[in-house]
């Protein structure tokens, strides 16, 4: 990213006033995410979830989704927190907060497609981590959920340029970041990085947001960036993209990201990628349900 462009994006992103619908709950939530588990007070979480009735209702509905795999749908917020555990609650809260990130009128991309992709990617990242030893699935969930937040920035700050990029991508059937680079001069990775810094997201999340299309440029958390990159690709090849197929063939095992993960997680070679893909297909209906839950309560 060139310096003047960086300055331009930064200036325009910092100027946004419509964006912060999220942070009233998101900021304390992100503080909580970074607190060591043993120091977190359950009551704080319950009051955070209960802070906003809509969020609380949404959390209960999302927590009842089979994708969050609770034995029995929780009826109260405190029960939900108990049943789901801290990490899960954070993921759910974050999901709900993100659902309110953008006023409906601001969407340039199809919000259903955006949420299907972000949630799909989040869930696939978490599932992928279940196959690996010592990889925090909830952290990967958050990374998957937030990886494309730059698209939200582009919707709000650069609506006309971004519309042109989207049209170009669909017409030419090319990856969205390539179309953005061609018609805007920068991509959602860069605008997302600026917003992520402004929101004070963790360094690891910023790496994911900035480099999920160019894993080797990540200077930290390369495995996490690589996981998000691969899960992002997988979602796009299984009809969880932005309404068109930008690539006709993808070789995930041959992707440099695969080697990056393999260096730290040799158990990756035991992962049945085909079966993993079918599991994702099996979760499509549930992802669609979750998206409609989030969008219906976000619009309320």
């Amino acid at each position, binding site marked *: 990213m060139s310096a003047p462009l960086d300055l331009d994006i930064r200036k325009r992103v910092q100027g946004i006033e419509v964006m912060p619908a999220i942070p009233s709950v998101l900021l304390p939530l992100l503080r909580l995410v970074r607190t060591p588990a043993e120091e977190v007070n359950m009551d704080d979480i319950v009051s955070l979830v209960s802070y906003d009735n809509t969020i609380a209702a949404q959390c209960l509905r999302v927590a009842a989704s089979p994708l969050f795999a609770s034995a029995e749908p929780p009826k109260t917020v405190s029960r939900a927190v108990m049943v789901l555990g801290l990490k899960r609650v954070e993921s759910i809260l974050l999901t709900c907060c993100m659902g309110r990130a953008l006023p409906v009128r601001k969407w340039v991309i199809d919000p259903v497609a955006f949420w299907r992709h972000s949630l799909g990617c989040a869930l696939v990242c978490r599932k992928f981590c279940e196959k690996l030893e010592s990889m925090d699935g909830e952290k990967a969930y958050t990374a998957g959920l937030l990886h494309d937040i730059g698209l939200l920035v582009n919707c709000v700050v650069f609506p006309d340029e971004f519309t042109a990029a989207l049209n170009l991508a669909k017409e030419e059937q090319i990856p969205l970041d390539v179309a953005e680079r061609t018609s805007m001069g920068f991509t959602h990775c860069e605008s997302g990085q600026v917003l992520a810094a402004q929101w004070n997201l963790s360094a690891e999340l910023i790496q994911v947001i900035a480099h999920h299309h160019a894993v080797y440029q990540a200077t930290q958390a390369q495995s996490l960036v690589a996981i998000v990159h691969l899960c992002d690709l997988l979602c796009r090849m299984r009809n969880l993209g932005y309404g068109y197929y930008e690539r006709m*063939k993808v070789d995930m*095992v*041959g992707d440099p990201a695969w080697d990056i993960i393999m260096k730290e997680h040799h158990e990756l070679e035991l992962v*049945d*990628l*085909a079966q993993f*893909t079918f599991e994702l297909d*099996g979760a499509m209906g549930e992802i669609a349900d979750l998206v409609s839950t989030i969008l219906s309560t976000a619009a309320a």
Partner: protein
Amino acid sequence: MSTVTQPPSSLSPAPPNAPIDPIFRQIRDLVYKVSGIYQLEDKLYLLADGCNRRIKQLNVRSPREYWDHLTAHPSRDGEIRHLLNELTIGETCLFRSQAQIDALRKVILPELMADKTKQVVKRLRFWSAGCSTGEEAYTLAITALEEMEVRLKGWNVEIIATDLNDRSIEAGKSGIYRDYALRNTNEFYKRKYFVPAEGTKLQVRPEVKKLVTFKRLNLADDAQMLFMKGMDLICCCNVLIYFDGPSKSKVIGHFFSDLNPGGYFFLGISESLMRLNDQFHLVHFPGAIGYWKPTPKSDKP
């Protein structure tokens, strides 16, 4: 590209709206675990039908008791196999997986053609292994004929369709299909590539048949398998689920050597080569998965 789990036509399925014993969902999950076959909620009655046929044959009193046969009984492995047979009675349809056809037309054919540009004889060989009654083979033939009007003009396309079952082969040769087998075939193709046969059935036209050679072949027969050389594409969908691990690996090893370098291999919708073969290279197409045989010059597709 082919097999779908359906009841045999002689038995009438239970109406889809009838209430279904929840135990069938457990059986559905078990079947999915062992075979990768998954019955969606609206098709669960088909699984229930298959189980009910076994329940009758075994003289078992209830679906719950049948569940014990599948999970706790000493002969549970054999019973699961019986149930799988019930669930996969060879009712298939043409154009079963549009995603695989798209991958063939948009990626695989252009690649194969590019690989063969220097060859004098422009020839492609496809193999439908475990072809049942020929639906997959004719799907490949129709797809090839469509392409032969444009970029495959002047190419020779040969489709070999093999199955163990003589009756299936004969039915395949006749090329006559009921509405159900043609449910995914669009009206344009029906008019272009089929002629009316008895009742509402349709028969594939001679020019489609001309591309397909049917023959009986046992995938477990090494001698026969060694003769199937020079393939550019092999489809073997929902057939290997009936093989145990070592036989599966052996069959897949044959497929690998029967394919030309740069050729592709398609399995059924829920099947995987994991732990069966590490020579094939897994690739994702939109909505489909395929396996690629690396070329000597490159090990990346």
